């Protein structure tokens, strides 16, 4: 017999993401999901920029990696609360892992919760975790052709950070190529050029961040 179903397979995942979002809304925290390839500077960005936020802004990080607690250790002096989520072989964080992460945090004591997703330009883009905003990093050494190669990651971004720009001259990086590709894929997201090493652009990133509160998804 043939059963016609017409049901979204992602209902469970999306429902869990919505539960997470409502839970974070109820305590008034803003959740930022950070996505990029491995090694583009997600952890360093948080390490450098979170201590620069105005005094009294309370931050927490859920950091996802396949293995190790190294990133959580790197972040322990930058954010008040840090929880490492090891995904084992999982190539992305899932909404249920975020739920467990939320259980491990004192949510009432957080203004900004950052989710540092597993470094990967494909799988994390396909999963809503319940975040309010999505940040995508693209580092100069990865090449100026990656927006065109991984369009969906960039299409879903609310802001795009071009990192390690201090290497741009050395690597003959073509910013115009990046902007040209972005104009076809996502012309709404602001692009911020920054260098964690020199500090250039960190203020622009913080200003963007501060402008996102209070944030509720449309």
């Amino acid at each position: 017999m043939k059963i016609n179903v017409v049901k979204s397979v992602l209902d469970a995942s999306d429902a869990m993401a919505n539960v997470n979002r409502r839970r974070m809304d109820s305590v008034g925290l803003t959740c930022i999901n950070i996505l990029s390839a491995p090694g583009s500077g997600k952890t360093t960005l948080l390490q450098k920029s979170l201590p620069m936020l105005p005094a009294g802004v309370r931050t927490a990080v859920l950091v996802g990696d396949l293995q190790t607690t190294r990133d959580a250790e790197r972040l322990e002096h930058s954010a008040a609360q840090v929880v490492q989520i090891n995904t084992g072989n999982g190539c992305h964080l899932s909404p249920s892992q975020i739920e467990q992460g939320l259980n491990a945090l004192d949510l009432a004591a957080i203004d900004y919760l950052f989710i540092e997703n597993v470094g990967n330009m494909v799988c994390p883009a396909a999963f809503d975790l319940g975040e309010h905003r999505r940040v995508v990093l693209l580092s100069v050494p990865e090449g100026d052709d990656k927006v065109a190669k991984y369009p969906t990651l960039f299409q879903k971004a609310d802001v795009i950070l071009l990192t390690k720009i201090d290497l741009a001259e050395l690597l003959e990086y073509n910013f115009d190529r990046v902007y040209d590709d972005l104009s076809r894929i996502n012309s709404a997201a602001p692009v911020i050029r920054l260098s964690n090493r020199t500090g250039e652009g960190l203020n622009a990133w913080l200003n963007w961040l501060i402008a996102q509160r209070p944030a509720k998804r449309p």
Partner: protein
Amino acid sequence: MHEMSIAEGVLSAVLDAADGCGARRVDRVELIVGQMRLVVPEALVMAWQVISEGTIAAGAELAVTETPMEAQCRRCGRKFAPRIDNYLCPGCGQADVDILAGDDIILKSVICETDGGDAGESKEDLNADQRSLRENTDDAEKE
């Protein structure tokens, strides 16, 4: 390889549907996958074979169809069909869209056998393991 987590969701939806009508075996599952979900159909089929093992859906064929995207421009309201690498609105030339279709994974139908002997379009005389084996062999021969 997020296909494994998607396959888990598919299995759960398939078993719900099959249980709902007292099926004893699932023969075929039709799935519609939106392009934006970045699914590799071959990888999804492989994940499905692994994850359905030991359930009444073991060995069931997973037929994956990709659906094109539909978007609506946030600037001028025009609806159009973007490509995965091009979201430019033909009306106003901006790439600022809401995705209306192509960002979902829909279980369309489940073909299953019940104790009443209704076999749908299936090959009744083979049990699931044999059929799975035969399909795998067929695939290997094709390559």
